[in-house]
């Protein structure tokens, strides 16, 4: 994990050659700034003030060196009293600067981390409201990396880059003013050198940009290769393809090395180049300064704005000032680069934040009257008892526009009935159940519950009325009991255990090392698939929903566990409207209605015997698994 990047020390990203123009164009960075400004107005204001104070004090202290040398040290006659006073003054100024710098740092840490916390919270809240389609179409790894890597890049931007940028600008301005006051000719030299530095940095940046893009591409290629080949490593072994894999990897690896080298080389060179232009400037100023001071020139253009001729002390202070002037120039370019680099992260972050949430405009809500008795409360205050009558009328649906998955689905489940869906994978069985609890929005037709269009029911209420057991069981890290309680958060321990008992999960749970208090690792890895399925049935049982959707387990469970699960499912179905995605004949046979699906259409419907008599698809499905 690349989270928690260096604290304090900056691990510089290679120079991507980003410029002010790129920064201006990065909309999400500006949105981030707006967000910060909105939530931390006072903090930011105070931090800026602190930066101002610390820049000014550092300037003042370099200027003070001049006074110190010219007025106290050089003409020193032995009067240490005045010197002591001067040094106390200097000390006070410096201390103020240090305090301001520290205060600014502390404030920005709060702002930075606070913003990160706020954004993370917003991200998660927003994500909970996203439609399922989002999760289908985005890799989980990518989603997770937004929370850690992308949010983390903000730490640098808020904590360092932005304050430094501001500080650099203030420093350049303040230094410029004092340089002009001290000496016009020397200022001219310093400005020319700073400009040169800026030019060199941007032109190196341009070269770097090309290599940087190349680096990104090659990095992608190598990562892709590793991902594919390491996942397929077992096949490589079985086919003794090790040599070929190595050769292919070698080529990609060398290409990556070359481009990373080129990109890093340029960004490594930028620093010494700037540093040495600074040195040149220093030398040049010392030379020219000495020249002017020696010649005793006192024409106005040879002096500063203060009109005083160049003194030794002035040269010394000027030399210090010059460093303050040139350093920020290269720093500005670096910080802009950092911010632009981070903008890729903010782009992804805001993309997730901007995702459209699920539509939820329903006003009908669900109320529990007593055990197993529920009612719908309409917006006008009237109530309709929840019976469990579910119907679909002429429903069309597609996940991706243009690729219709369900066509003309019409069916009604009367209270207490058991409806089985049968058909090959891809026929649309799971999709129908996904529409009943409105995981996805239908294109055409209506889905209704007790005569109320599901779109008029508040989503939370609708889903609370439906229990669901998925074939792919998902458990959470926590104890067994906590996992069962996930079905109803206010269920007592006894209720949870009772639910487990009712679905025959109790016996295996008691055999676990700590029984109901056994801690499950992430996604219940320490349980077998059958046991996980039993737990998820218990979870649905404790919720005690009026309507149930069951996705039966397939054959990857041994016959005994399968029977246990079957028994468990049968017990939970009693007295509820149930939709079952059936994989086993035994489930189907006693269903009130069997819907045979094929390519998103109901092609046959009826009871077991009726359908067999048809000698159609259902008959073929049955006989397909029979042995002649």
């Amino acid at each position, binding site marked *: 994990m690349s989270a928690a990047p260096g*604290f304090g020390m900056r691990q510089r990203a290679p120079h991507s050659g980003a410029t002010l123009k790129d920064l201006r164009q990065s909309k999400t960075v500006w949105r981030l700034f707006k967000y910060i400004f909105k939530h931390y107005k006072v903090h930011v204001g105070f931090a800026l003030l602190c930066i101002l104070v610390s820049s000014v004090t550092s300037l003042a202290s370099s200027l003070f060196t001049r006074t110190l040398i010219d007025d106290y040290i050089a003409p020193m006659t032995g009067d240490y009293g005045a010197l002591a006073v001067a040094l106390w003054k200097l000390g006070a100024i410096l201390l103020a600067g240090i305090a301001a710098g520290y205060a600014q740092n502390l404030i920005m840490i709060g702002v930075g981390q606070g913003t990160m916390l706020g954004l993370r919270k917003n991200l998660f809240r927003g994500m909970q409201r996203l439609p399922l389609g989002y999760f289908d179409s985005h890799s989980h790894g990518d989603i997770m990396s937004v929370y850690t890597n992308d949010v983390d890049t903000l730490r640098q931007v808020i904590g360092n880059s932005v304050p430094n940028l501001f500080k650099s600008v203030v420093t350049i301005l303040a230094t410029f003013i004092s340089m002009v006051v001290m000496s016009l000719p020397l200022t001219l030299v310093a400005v020319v050198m700073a400009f040169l530095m800026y030019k060199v940095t941007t032109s190196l940046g341009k070269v770097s940009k090309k290599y940087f893009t190349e680096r990104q591409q090659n990095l992608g290629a190598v990562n892709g290769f590793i991902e594919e080949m390491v996942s397929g490593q077992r096949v490589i072994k079985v086919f003794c393809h090790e040599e070929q894999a190595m050769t292919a990897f070698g080529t990609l*690896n060398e290409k990556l090395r070359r481009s990373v080298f080129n990109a*890093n080389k340029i960004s490594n060179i930028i620093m010494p180049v700037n540093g040495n232009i600074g040195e040149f400037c220093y030398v040049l100023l010392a030379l020219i300064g000495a020249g002017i001071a020696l010649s005793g020139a006192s024409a106005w253009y040879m002096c500063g704005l203060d009109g005083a001729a160049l003194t030794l002390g002035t040269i010394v202070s000027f030399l210090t000032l010059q460093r303050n002037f040139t350093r920020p120039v290269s720093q500005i370019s670096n910080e802009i680069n950092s911010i632009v680099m981070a903008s890729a992260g903010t782009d992804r972050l805001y993309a997730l934040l901007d995702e459209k949430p699920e539509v939820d405009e329903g006003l009908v809500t669900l109320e529990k009257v007593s055990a197993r008795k529920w009612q719908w409360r309409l917006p006008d205050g009237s109530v309709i008892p929840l019976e469990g009558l579910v119907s679909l009328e002429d429903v069309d649906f597609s996940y991706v526009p243009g690729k219709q998955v369900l066509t003309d689905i019409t069916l009604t489940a009367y209270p207490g009935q058991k409806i089985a869906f049968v058909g090959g994978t891809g026929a649309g069985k799971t999709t129908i159940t996904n529409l009943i609890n409105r995981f996805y929005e239908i294109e055409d037709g209506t889905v209704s519950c007790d005569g109320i269009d599901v779109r008029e029911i508040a989503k939370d209420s609708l889903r609370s009325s439906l229990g669901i057991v998925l074939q792919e069981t998902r458990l959470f890290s926590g104890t067994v009991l906590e996992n069962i309680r996930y079905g109803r958060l206010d269920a007592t321990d006894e209720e949870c255990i009772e639910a487990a008992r009712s679905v025959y999960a109790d016996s295996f749970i008691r055999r676990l090392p700590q029984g109901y208090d056994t801690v499950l690792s992430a996604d219940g890895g320490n349980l077998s698939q059958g046991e996980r399925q039993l737990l998820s049935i218990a979870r649905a049982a404790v919720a005690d929903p009026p309507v149930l959707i069951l996705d039966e387990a397939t054959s990857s469970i041994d016959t005994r566990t399968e029977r246990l699960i079957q028994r468990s499912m049968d017990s939970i179905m009693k007295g509820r409207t149930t939709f079952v995605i059936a994989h086993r004949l035994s489930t189907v046979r006693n269903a009130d209605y069997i819907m045979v699906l094929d390519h998103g259409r109901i092609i046959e419907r009826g009871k077991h015997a009726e359908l067999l008599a048809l000698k159609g698809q259902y008959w073929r499905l049955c006989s397909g698994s029979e042995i002649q």
Partner: protein
Amino acid sequence: MRQYKWAAWLTPVWTTAEVVMGVLIPYVTASLIDKGSSAGEMAEVYRYGGIMIGMALLSLLFGMLAGSFAAYSSTGLAANLRAAMYRNIQRFSFSDIDKFSTAGLVTRMTTDVSNVQNAFQMLLRTSFRAPLNMISALVMCFLINARLSIIFLLAMLVLMTFLSILIARAAKLFRQVFERYDAVNAVVQENVSAIRVVKAFVRENHEISKFDKAALSLFSLNVRVERMMALNHPVMNLIVNACIIAVSWWGAHFIVEGTLTTGQLTSLFSYIMTIMASLMMLSMIIVQLTQSAASGARIAEVITEEPDMDDPADPVTEVRDGSIDFENVSFSYGRGGDYALMDIDLHIKAGETVGVIGGTGSGKSSLGSLISRLYDASEGVVRVGGRDVREYSMKALRQQVANVLQKSTLFSGSVLENLRWGREDATEEECVEACRMAAADEFVREMPEGYQTHLEQGGTNLSGGQRQRLCIARALLKRPKVLVLDDATSAVDTATDARIREGLRKGSPGITTVIIAQRILSILHADRIVVMEGGRVIGFDTHARLLETCPVYREIYEMQSGGEGDFDEAAKGEGRL
């Protein structure tokens, strides 16, 4: 390292040269001010000015050299690390791959390597520069004025003590920070992968409060660590400034005494900055290195992992025939773990077709993988063609014992390229022939570019059943003596399954075939059937006789045929929905 070693060694040399130049420049400046400006000698000013410009030029040159060399050697190191890891992964046995997990290996080869690369580059460039800067600046100070320099030494000691306390405390916190990142990650990961459950049970708010808790605890620790590290700057500045004031005070005295010049005093000021900044940098390097040390350790694990399987000294390369014998074989995946197979004693004749059936976890796949020595038996001997599988070279064995794995993996590239994994020099006709046997020819021809059609990574543009058929064809191209099909037709419908069996029977007579399956229909027609339960063989006979003698077999048979059969087996795995 090898070819990049010289660059790595030269980097500090250039850095040293650059630092020496950088340190000397203020020294010369002092001379320029004292001998030139103060003395009023323009000639001296030019002389020292010239020297300084020359030195700055040299310093630039060395700086650039150091930068490029550091980039060269650190990227070289990264490339070599990746290559070394990849090379060793190629030697990994199946159990080694299990141990590291695919995701773990990928992170090590990408994120961890770039962490180490950055750390190494920084190490080369700054870890020499910082102490060098510090020492040479200190030396210069002593040259200028030994008495004043004592102040620096004292200041340095104070700063060093402070920094080491700070680092020690921070390092402890860093580890905790990583744990809290993991906690945040875990909540997001669980939430995203279980989003259907979350939504179905309307537990969004419950999840939000879980997340907020994790995020808040990360936040508070991060703030703590950062606040602690933020002390660095003010403390250093305090010390630096105290030095400046002290030096000004004593310096003034010395100037009056005549033991110090004004120029020297200015040089001292700039050396103070250099010394303290170097110390600071040094402390940061240490922090950074402790952080990337974790990555280094993870990489080392992969590189130094000794594959637990190797070719024998004098390997046999020819498998005589397709007979398979298990003699008292027991097998467990982990050392000392539960046994996946126990006391297996099986003798399969060359050319026989054998079915293997049993519930999940009964040991079917483990049995199959021992034949081509994907794992080594913990006890007992597995023989192929009459010889212990450990006597063969692995390459030869796996070439002649083809194993079609449960998970059908294809690679990006054309269909033909994928097939030729089986045999590199197979002609197109041979590939087509293999496809015909595996009932794959038809659908391949229907694809837009037939055998030249490009497959996406993992073959995602094919259905599960199509992938499985190509995998079988790929294995057939090896012209193996033994073919192990590990649930390799689970996603094809019953009719196609039958056609594949038929194709195998006709297309490659004499080949020993082991068919591992969930579906009884796939193995019904085998010469003999192995029934497994709980890692043991509980029946090995023909279908007819097993029905009489083996109750478990009868139960499976009745469940799948007598009205409790599976419905959508036919199309299982053909798509997501």
